[in-house]
């Protein structure tokens, strides 16, 4: 037996969560299929008018990704809460912030990254050109981790609350608004002939802000939920 540093502890948490998720594939797949279906319903409902679809595409893809990422939020800590693993994490001599960061990272890898990867394919349904697709992917790449980070605070706060799922959405969706505005705005700005870099820079700023504060707030929320 040997002692290890913080990075390997983080790695162990991520690895554990990924192993669990890959054994119960339904979790990853529901998120992904939800996104695919929501994004596909709009072109079917609105009709094949290319100019209109191009205009609404960024907003729809972003809202879809947001709702899909939110579907799996409640499960971020729920299983660990029920089987007592969360107590063990709180009692671990490792800083809880590091363990929580690992859980958030695992959530993003399972619920955020797949959305980023499938988005360009869905963008094709809306007749987006290659340049817009690239910006869409960039904005999602910067934005979806923020969704996981902010979502973790809500997931921790609503642990063990009856009907926590609805409460979680009400709590978290308003906080997602800035990400939505700058994320969808990046693609729209580029389509309008402006530079998208301002929007992307703001998303990156949101990401660093969330990465700094969210694990800390989640830690505090978890301790309260476990009392």
């Amino acid at each position: 037996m040997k002692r290890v540093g913080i990075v390997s502890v983080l790695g162990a948490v991520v690895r554990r969560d990924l192993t669990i998720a890959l054994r119960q594939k339904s979790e990853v797949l529901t998120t992904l299929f939800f996104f695919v279906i929501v994004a596909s319903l709009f072109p079917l409902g609105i009709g094949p008018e290319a100019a209109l679809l191009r205009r609404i595409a960024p907003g729809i893809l972003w809202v879809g990704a947001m709702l899909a990422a939110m579907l799996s939020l409640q499960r971020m800590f729920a299983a660990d809460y029920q089987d007592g693993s969360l107590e063990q994490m709180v009692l671990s001599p490792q800083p809880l912030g590091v363990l929580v960061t690992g859980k958030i990272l695992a959530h993003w890898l399972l619920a955020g990254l797949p959305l980023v990867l499938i988005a360009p394919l869905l963008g094709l349904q809306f007749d987006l050109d290659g340049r817009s697709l690239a910006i869409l992917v960039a904005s999602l790449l910067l934005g979806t981790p923020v969704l996981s980070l902010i979502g973790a605070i809500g997931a921790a706060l609503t642990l063990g609350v009856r009907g926590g799922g609805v409460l979680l959405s009400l709590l978290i969706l308003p906080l997602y608004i800035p990400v939505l505005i700058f994320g969808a705005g990046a693609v729209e700005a580029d389509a309008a002939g402006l530079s998208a870099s301002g929007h992307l820079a703001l998303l990156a700023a949101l990401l660093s802000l969330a990465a700094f504060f969210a694990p800390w707030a989640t830690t505090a929320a978890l301790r309260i939920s476990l009392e």
Partner: protein
Amino acid sequence: MLEGKDLACERGGRALFSHLGFTLGDGELLQVQGANGSGKTSLLRMVCGLTPAADGEIRWNGTAIAALGEAYRESLLYLGHHNAIQDSLTARENLSATAALSGLVLSEREAGEALRRIGLRGREDFPTRFLSQGQKRRVALARLMWSKARLWVLDEPFVALDAAALALLAETIAAHLGRGGLAVLTSHQEVAIAGISAQTLNLSP
């Protein structure tokens, strides 16, 4: 040394106990007894620092545990009602995951060894969902086999175990106390731990 001073507990607006005190020296065992709902689990969670005490203070080697933080958690092992094992992981994976939380890397061989000692030979690589209640408890208890913690806090460790596992657990606890470790446990049954005279703390009014 673990001390509880003037402890009080309140759950849902009802006082469960108050002015409770104990002192536990090295190599000693504290057995908490009491009827259902008398606050045994609450007391154990207090000792771990999971639930703050409504009144009073718990000290580890003379310092309040709230002030010690990570230094205290380093010397603590808590086994609650829940086994803290994930159904879809194998026994071995569960054990390695728990070890990682304590900042230890458990090799495949070491994890297998601990599981064999607790009587799970041949079940190491089964998803724990297929194990019986008692076997799941054994997976949770396998942590005791490699733990380096000085203070063991065990909530109903004997539940769901068969006679052989009971004897093994009693032996493991005795060995831990023999090394100068401390243990706090709750139990409804009297379990003889060889050569150890336990302090008892009765919470029933």
